[in-house]
Every structure is written in structure tokens, then in C-alpha cells.
């Protein structure tokens, strides 16, 4: 596979309108009244260059991405569950044991048994 950098095509808010711009391009490619038309144009460009469409929200943060790159995607992983910083007065082992029992005893009643 040819080793080349991904081309990113951004849809960005600008003065109450939406612009389409490639990441390495100095000028905007096009300006649109609605985000929808900007996305349609940007998507076609991203598809034609096997790049990546990057849609920004009104506040500038990235809202959505769609990749049309041939590059292999990294494997998806489930999120890590984070525990609270302040501890329960009941021991962690006791809570875990009780939850496992509840799941085992009620596996047909709710998702716990799936």
C-alpha cells in the first residue's frame, strides 16, 4: 500500500456561514449558507481524494468524522469504566460479590444475564 498522509477536508463555521477547506490548503474551497450543503460538498471531495471529512460544530469543536481513506483503521476498544474517587463504606469486594450474585440470580429479568 502506498504510504501517504491522509487529506483532511474540514467543514468549519465562519461568520454565520459554513466553509469547506482542506487542511493544507491556504484558501477556502467553497462557502455555503447551510452546514448541510457544506457537508455534501466536503464529503464528495473527501471521497474523491480518499481523505477524511471533519465536521465542526458552531463552537469550533469537532462534531463528527467520516474517513474515506484506504488506511487501516485502529481497532475499536470498549471504554474503560472509572470508579469514584471517594470510597463507599462497604468494601469493594463485598459490592462486587453482591452484584455478581444479583446478575446470576436474575439473569432472565434484565440485561445483567446477557
Amino acid at each position, binding site marked *: 500500500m502506498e504510504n501517504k498522509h491522509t487529506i483532511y477536508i474540514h467543514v468549519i463555521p465562519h461568520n454565520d456561514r459554513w466553509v469547506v477547506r482542506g487542511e493544507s490548503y491556504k484558501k477556502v474551497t467553497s462557502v455555503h449558507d447551510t452546514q448541510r450543503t457544506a457537508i455534501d460538498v466536503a464529503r464528495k471531495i473527501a471521497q474523491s481524494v480518499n481523505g477524511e471529512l471533519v465536521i465542526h*460544530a458552531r*463552537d469550533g*469543536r*469537532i*462534531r463528527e*468524522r467520516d*474517513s474515506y481513506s484506504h488506511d487501516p*483503521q*485502529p*481497532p*475499536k*476498544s*470498549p*471504554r*474503560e*469504566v*472509572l*470508579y*469514584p*474517587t*471517594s*470510597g*463507599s*463504606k*462497604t468494601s*469493594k469486594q*463485598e*459490592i*462486587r460479590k*453482591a*452484584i*455478581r*450474585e*444479583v*446478575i446470576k*440470580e*436474575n439473569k432472565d*429479568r*434484565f*440485561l*445483567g444475564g*446477557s
Partner: protein
Amino acid sequence: MPKISVDFSKNIFINCPFDGNYIYLFNAIVFTVHDIGFRPRCALEASNAGQFRLNKILDIISECKYSIHDISRTELDAITGLPRFNMPLELGLDLGCKRFGTSQQLEKVSLILDIEPFRYQKFISDISGQDVFAHRGEEKKVVEIVRNWLSLELDPRTIIMPGGDMIFQRYKAFQMALPILCEKLNWITNELPFADFSYAAATWINENPF
């Protein structure tokens, strides 16, 4: 100044009423935050001996990249005839931390919840421009709002993230399991401290991968 938490980018400060009339929404938010892989923080965390409440809140705010503020409680107190200002105060502290804090704290992101859309413009119009969403007092709606808001912060190419409907179904299942769990642990279901509820939710989620 409090030390920045190593989990800054995973901590979410929840600023909302803690009374019995709001607990159903608070619990739904806590569960959703856990199910997406973040850590809920709030003023109900066990405090250090002698620590003033406001100092504790300031510490938590400084350690959280994300914050969820519910400003829906605007009604006047039946006895005093006065509104409660704690939630707007803590929202202001959080926005101030983002504005005047460290370079890391400049990245803070806030979600503001109210019960009706655009109502906030009548009593706290200065927050226009922030992410303000209406949950209409519904658990399912608040789950969807929090999930969709946090989804912007995760890379969908690398993280498997459940949809709002799936999280809500998982939360309903957890709610069904909770009274049985409380019975086993000699907990009182309707009087669970935040630490117990949060730890039980996180453990249940860990034992029930989607």
C-alpha cells in the same frame, strides 16, 4: 491552588440539586457518565475533615475537564420565598476557572441543562453561547443529552460507544437490580450515599459489558 488531577480529562463535575425531587435525574446522569467511561464528581463526595464546602467544590472544579450544570431549579422556596443560587454560583465558578485557570483548565467544557428550552434567557441570559439543553425533567432525555454531548469528546474510530437508547435501557436494568443489591448489602435504596450509588453503578457496568 489545588493540584491538577491526573484524570483531569476523564473527570466530570456534576452541579445539580441533590434533593429527593431531582435524585432520579442525578442518578441517570451519574450512570450515563460511568457508562461512557468518565468519572462523575460532585459536592457529595466524602470531604476531608474540616474542609469548607466551597473549598471542596473549588477543588473538584479544578480537577474536572468537563462539567454538567443543571440550572432548572429556579422556583422560590415555599418557606423563605427566595430562590436557591448554589447552581448558578457553581456554574460561574466553573466558567471562571476556565477563563482564569491554568493552560489545562482553559480546555474545560461545560454542558448546561434546564427543564425547558430557552427559558434560561429570562433569568441568566449571560450564558448565551454555551451548550444549553432542555431535559424536560425526563430521565431518557437527560441520558441522551449527556451521551451526545460526551460523544463529541471521544474518537468514534477507536472507542466503542453505546447509543443513548442503549444506555437508557442499561440504566433501567440497573434500576431494577438496585433494590435487590441494596437488600444484599443492607443498604437503604432511597437513601444511598453518592459514593455507594456511584461505586455500585460502575461495578454493575463493568460486570455487564455492552
